[in-house]
């Protein structure tokens, strides 16, 4: 074969990685050229992260070979990968919060043998950040930085360590639309200098925006590698899921009914005791979905927790159907038929080691027929669980199976089934589709819309603007614990919402007039 293209920066051949019970990578071939942005696209569990964890030395493959710039390599540890010029920016940042940016740069390096000349490192960092447009103060401590800035630090760290191949695992999940644009500009700049960018994502638009080539994974196997210019989002989606996807879930018009949730002047602190919610006020009516947009860490979690009794409000009131539930116990609020889909499914919403049946009765175990007096009714629990499994199409071997063994989508369906089983008047859902594949996402969205149709009020907290635009009737934007504005989702301007997410208050939007209350 004649060489009419440059030696690939990365070439992985026949990679196999088995985990107990699954083949995460099944003879995967992958290559990326110098100076290209190569996207790895696939649903969750398709094997993207596994493949890149192999490339970054976290996992060793069971079979297969890796070539870097034409030379075979064995990567036994992340340190091996770094010395070979491979840097990975994980979804969860690997930074020391109390240290400065410059100090984080040299952490784990052997470079300054004895004397740490921070000034010099700071200069080098400044130079790098100017070169790539990654603006960040090298003297700032990590905890002072926003999530977007921390990501820049991670990228800088990899560049500082001489990465020629940069892997980014779902980098846009934590960014505002503007920050995404900045990131993409940086990435393009890096490719012009011959660096290789591997971009892991399951968001089609972004992949189409940034990539030169795209490799689609499904079920641990490569479906295809295509040039961006020669494909379309529809084709990619089809390759990802193996069938045509409904991009829009049908949402019917519905007049909102009476007010279900009224939040007024709500304030609360975060875990560090600092104000996380500042004077938040809004209402949700029957059959209405209020979406909450915002970059992660702007008070969304605290809002969900205060509304469900898991966190104390420091001021303000929460009223559900004219009943004041401010600072009531979770039990009492559940009794007011408030459903809650928490962001951390396995950590909070479910008990991983307990069977499906024990998990679906978590909210109803004190009611007949699940229990009679102090005793549980095993037969009734089994029937109840089997009914939910059938009704919500939960794929599980049996209701006795520990939920830990279910897939992400089925976990979420189990959780939703339980929350819906209490016939909620108000449902608080945080990131209900995060990490789910397209099929499960669609199912979850349908369930939420079905609740809206039934007349429940829904508070939908999501980082996925497209999801909010699709499902919500109105969108509330949170920034640093404050309501930046509430806009109707219909004909909403994504750019305007993006600006609000970044902290810019809208000028004088008529739409929010009715929502504002005097403090």
């Amino acid at each position, binding site marked *: 074969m004649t060489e009419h293209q440059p030696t690939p920066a990365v070439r992985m051949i026949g990679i196999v990685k088995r985990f107990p019970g699954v083949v995460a990578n099944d003879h995967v071939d992958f290559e990326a050229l110098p100076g290209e942005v190569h996207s790895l696209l696939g649903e969750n569990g398709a094997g993207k992260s596994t493949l890149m964890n192999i490339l970054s030395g976290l996992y060793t493959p069971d079979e297969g070979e890796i070539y870097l710039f034409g030379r075979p390599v064995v990567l036994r540890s992340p340190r091996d990968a770094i010395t070979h010029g491979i840097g990975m920016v994980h979804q969860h940042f690997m930074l020391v919060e109390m240290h400065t940016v410059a100090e984080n740069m040299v952490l784990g390096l052997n470079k300054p043998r004895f004397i740490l000349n921070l000034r010099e490192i700071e200069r080098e960092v400044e130079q790098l950040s100017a070169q790539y447009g990654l603006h960040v103060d090298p003297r700032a401590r990590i905890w002072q930085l926003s999530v977007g800035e921390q990501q820049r630090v991670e990228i800088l760290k990899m560049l500082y360590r001489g990465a020629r191949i940069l892997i980014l695992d779902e980098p846009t999940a934590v960014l505002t639309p503007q920050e995404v644009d900045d990131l993409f500009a940086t990435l393009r700049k890096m490719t012009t200098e011959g660096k290789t960018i591997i971009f892991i994502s399951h968001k089609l638009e972004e992949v189409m925006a940034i990539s030169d080539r795209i490799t689609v994974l499904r079920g641990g196997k490569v479906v295809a590698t295509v040039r961006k210019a020669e494909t379309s989002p529809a084709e990619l989606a089809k390759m990802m899921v193996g069938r045509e996807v409904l991009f829009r879930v049908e949402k019917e018009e519905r007049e909102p009914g009476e007010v279900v949730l009224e939040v007024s002047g709500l304030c609360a602190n975060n875990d560090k005791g600092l104000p996380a919610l500042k004077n938040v006020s809004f209402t949700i009516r029957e059959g209405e979905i209020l979406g909450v947009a915002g970059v992660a860490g702007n008070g969304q979690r605290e809002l969900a927790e205060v509304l469900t009794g898991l966190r104390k409000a420091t001021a303000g009131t929460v009223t559900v159907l004219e009943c004041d539930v401010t600072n009531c116990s979770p039990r009492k609020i559940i009794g007011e038929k408030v459903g809650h889909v928490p962001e951390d499914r396995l950590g909070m919403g479910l*008990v991983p080691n307990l069977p499906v049946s024990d998990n679906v009765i978590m909210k109803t175990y004190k009611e007949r027929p699940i229990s009679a007096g102090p005793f549980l009714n095993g037969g009734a629990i089994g029937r109840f669980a089997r009914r939910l499994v059938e009704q919500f199409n939960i794929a599980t071997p049996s209701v006795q199976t520990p939920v830990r063994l279910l897939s992400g989508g089925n976990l979420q369906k189990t959780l939703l089934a339980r929350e819906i089983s209490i016939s909620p008047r108000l449902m608080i859902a945080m990131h209900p589709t995060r990490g789910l594949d397209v099929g499960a996402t669609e199912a979850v969205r349908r369930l939420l819309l079905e609740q809206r149709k039934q007349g429940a009020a829904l508070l939908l907290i999501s980082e996925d603007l497209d999801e909010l635009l699709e499902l919500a009737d109105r969108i509330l934007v949170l920034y640093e614990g404050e309501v930046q504005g509430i806009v109707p989702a219909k004909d909403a301007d994504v750019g305007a919402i993006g600006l609000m997410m970044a902290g810019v208050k809208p000028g004088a939007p008529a739409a929010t007039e009715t929502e504002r209350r005097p403090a």
Partner: protein
Amino acid sequence: MRIRLERRLKPSRAAGVLVPLISLILALAFGGLILLATGANPIVTYKAMAVGAFGGKYAISETLVKAIPLILCGLGVAVAFRMRFWNIGAEGQLAMGGFAAAWVALFLPGLLPNLPLKWLLPLMILAGMLAGALWGLIPALLRAFVGVNEVITTLMMNYIAILWIEYLFYGPWRDPKGYGFPGTAPFPQEGWLPRYPGTRVHLGLVFAIAAAIILWLVLTRTRWGYEVRVIGENPRAARYAGISLWRNFLLVMLVSGALAGLAGVGEVAGISHRLQKGLTVGYGYTAIIVAWMGQLNPWGVVLVGILLAGLLVGGDQIQITMRLPAAVALVLQGAILFFMLGGVLFNQYRLRVDWGLRRRPVRPTLPAEGGES
């Protein structure tokens, strides 16, 4: 060849049985080495221990006598551990149970002369359980409302309880007619737990078995058992589901302490018939091993309780028959726990051995750099 640990998809049932069993065997082997080092023949010694513990009616009855406090304390520890409340204070709760029962037996008839004496024993049992429960409640309150680590408090309160009863039977409660022996006067006969004729096995055995049955029913069939399960597995989920953590900490420690307190009642009212030195010989600590080896399951606790009681009795026997220190039994106990804790890993993980044969990749279909064909 490479040996790796792999996470199991589900906890292995076989491991649940095999780990305690293999730990026992390894502990015996380990103890055997120590016996060899002291110049004893391990096989002869173990045989003597087995005969001493289970060979014959007397041996079995003595084993059961020791199994009673081990099972009761073990059940108490197990129920607390299920909620991940690390109660290592069964020893102190047992001591307080014995103290309260002794107080009722020695002083209540004097205070209430009209009390029918048939009420004495039930009142002793009630008082002992209540005292154990309250002693257990203190660390639970500290944990629930001030956030104090219960491992420290339950342990420290053991010393308080033990020193308190020692003070009593060395001091103000000492029997003036006891020739200086550290112990109170004997209880009135009405305060004795009935025994199986010809042995020292007392009614406490029935209490222990009944407690195991009730506890098993409570844990598997009731709302409270469900709450314990959810809290033990995921406290955050429990809070989210509206299950009160502090309320359950208090409840579980009341139950746990009451069971240990009942064990104390059994010891004073069933065996010594007085409060005396030798009440706190470590049943409360051994109970931790019992609970853990029994996988926190009430039936497992009963089984392991009898087994470890046999080990103690067998240890006493070799002291008499072979002039070896009874501490051999304690060494074995420690070794069992040691190997058990190591073995727990295999509930979650399995070993995989790669012999290095499958490592060669299948020849890729893409031509390699050299282009040789």
